[in-house]
């Protein structure tokens, strides 16, 4: 990667700037981490304890936040009575399924776009990207109608198809860049060595693995965090975690404890995935696959 040491000299301005950026980062960390922290803590609190507030101006009273008896009753309620096991499963299948389908179709398509010249190729490529330009809401109504006619509403295959519709252009777009960076000579060497075209394609897949890894994560994130498709296409039979969480907001009362617990259940797997695949994600999106 192209980062390297840059010579820097101290000036009053640069010192001030250093302090400013430190303050900014501190605020940014609080801003992003605090809500997750509060959500995590609150999910273990009873409703009364969760709403215990110190008096205005009483900074010592902030310790009240940590003063509670931990309880797992919200989690128990979610999985035992509210069917969150099914919703978690639905989320996993919908996100994983669309990632797999997108990566298989996407890599084949990206490989073709990268290697084969044909008439209208750049137009086709632009058209593929442009399908991502329209907001999801704009296509939701016609999409719903199509899915209903095909009996796909409220089914997991329907949801996978819906996510794939939006992930596939993205897959093609990312993976084409990675294939472009693999020298064609490597496939030619494979073919001369005795491989068929398809074997040669398979042989270079390890070279685009960082791209595939990065894409799978982004694809899963999109599907996992999606609410709109889940609520409309998946409604009924294929309810996912975000859609189920939304239903905890009921007209007569809002199940804060359960919502917090559901939030943790939704967030944790993605944080874990992020940690596991962090290396891939960073190198995958910045570095262009392989150098010769």
């Amino acid at each position, binding site marked *: 990667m192209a980062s390297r040491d840059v010579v820097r000299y101290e000036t009053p301005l640069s010192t001030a700037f250093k302090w400013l950026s430190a303050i900014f980062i501190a605020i940014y960390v609080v801003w992003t981490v605090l809500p997750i922290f509060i959500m995590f803590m609150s999910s273990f609190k009873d409703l009364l304890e969760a709403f215990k507030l110190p008096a205005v101006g009483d900074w010592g009273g902030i310790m009240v936040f940590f003063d509670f008896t931990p309880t797992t009753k919200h989690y128990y309620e979610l999985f035992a009575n509210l069917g969150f096991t099914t919703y978690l499963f639905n989320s996993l299948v919908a996100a994983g399924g669309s990632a797999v389908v997108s990566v298989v179709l996407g890599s084949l398509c990206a490989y073709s776009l990268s290697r084969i010249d044909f008439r209208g190729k750049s137009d086709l490529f632009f058209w593929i990207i442009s399908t991502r330009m329209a907001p999801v809401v704009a296509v939701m109504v016609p999409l719903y109608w199509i899915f209903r006619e095909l009996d796909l509403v409220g089914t997991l295959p329907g949801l996978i198809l819906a996510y794939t519709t939006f992930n596939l252009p993205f897959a093609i777009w990312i993976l084409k860049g990675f294939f472009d960076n693999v020298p064609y000579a490597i496939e030619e060497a494979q073919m001369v060595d005795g491989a068929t075209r398809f074997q040669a394609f398979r042989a270079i897949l390890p070279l685009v693995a960082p791209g595939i890894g990065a894409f799978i994560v982004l694809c899963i994130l999109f599907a996992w965090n999606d609410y709109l498709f889940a609520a409309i296409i998946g409604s009924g039979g294929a309810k996912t975690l975000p859609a189920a969480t939304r239903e905890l907001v009921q007209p007569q009362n809002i199940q804060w404890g359960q919502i917090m617990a559901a939030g943790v259940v939704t967030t944790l797997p993605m944080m874990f995935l992020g940690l596991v695949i962090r290396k891939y994600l960073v190198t995958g999106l910045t570095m262009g696959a392989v150098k*010769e």
Partner: protein
Amino acid sequence: MAKVSFRNVWKKYGTTPAVKDLNIECPDGSFLSILGPSGCGKSSTMRMVAGLEHITAGQILFDEKPINTLAPKDRDVAMVFENYALYPHKSVFENMANPLKLRGQDATVIKDRVMAAAKLLEISQLLERRPQELSGGQKQRVAIGRAIVREPNLFLFDEPIAHLDAKLRAHMRGEIKHLQRTLGTTMIYVTHDQLEAMSMADTIAVMHEGELQQLGTPREVYNKPVNAWVAGFVGEPAMNFVDVGLQDKDGKTYFIHPNFSIAVTDQQQHIIAAAARVNALRMGVRPDAMSISLVKPKHECITGKIFVTELLGGDMIIDVDLDDGSRIRVKTSTDFDGVEGQTCYMTVNRDKWHAFSKENGKALF
């Protein structure tokens, strides 16, 4: 092992011809070098043999069997690429084992073959490494190793040593030639470096702008170039070309030029006479077919002014200006002590000079 024949082979990209009507016979077990500047169609030719490009027209035959429509894997050729094209995610061993693995060989056979090839190329200690941990010369050996682990119909080497440094290149020339002799496999070797072609090949095919200019042994190509282009491309330092007029005097034909007037040999005179109605030619002399002196010799010679002298260690190159604005280079021994601006005299070995038509560059002798 196979004999390779090109019969009226054409390659066109769109309407642009890259290879025009190529005819070459490359006998079984011989070393053919395709020589030419970049863009002359030599790489296209090789890629057509490998099956990486379609043959637009004509036929390529292995042992008289046309291979035009065979996929690369069915042609059974082994190729070494210009930038090696090693598989970056595989170890050296896996790289070399790949062709055998794809052909479904046993693990033990693969191991034996790879070991034998690695020993031959002196890379046995590198088998566990990845390509990015290797130097240029080592990568190149691995690429060759991948080609020689099996017994293909023929080897295709596409400028395999172009990216090595000069010293290693000189070393690898000898090694590759020795390798080809040892294995006895037909070899087609593409290069833009006339020195590589001269020093390694049994036969050189000189190509220029998609056309085969000359097919011959290195000696033939060097000593009897068919046209001015081949004469100028082969040989370093390059051949000198000087436009001369013709004059008949006392039954002898003379090359005349502001700086000299030299009679041709009797045999050359007959050739010129046979080529009806020429009165001007392009004379070509290699720098080592002349001698230079500061003392005017008694016989006919070329007079000129020294422009610059270059010492090359073992010998010297003298650049000499002639009155018509042309400049010629002479190779001489390091004893020569002329300095810039001095008048000098060059004697030409008339058996080794050449004459080319001014219209089409064809060689008369």
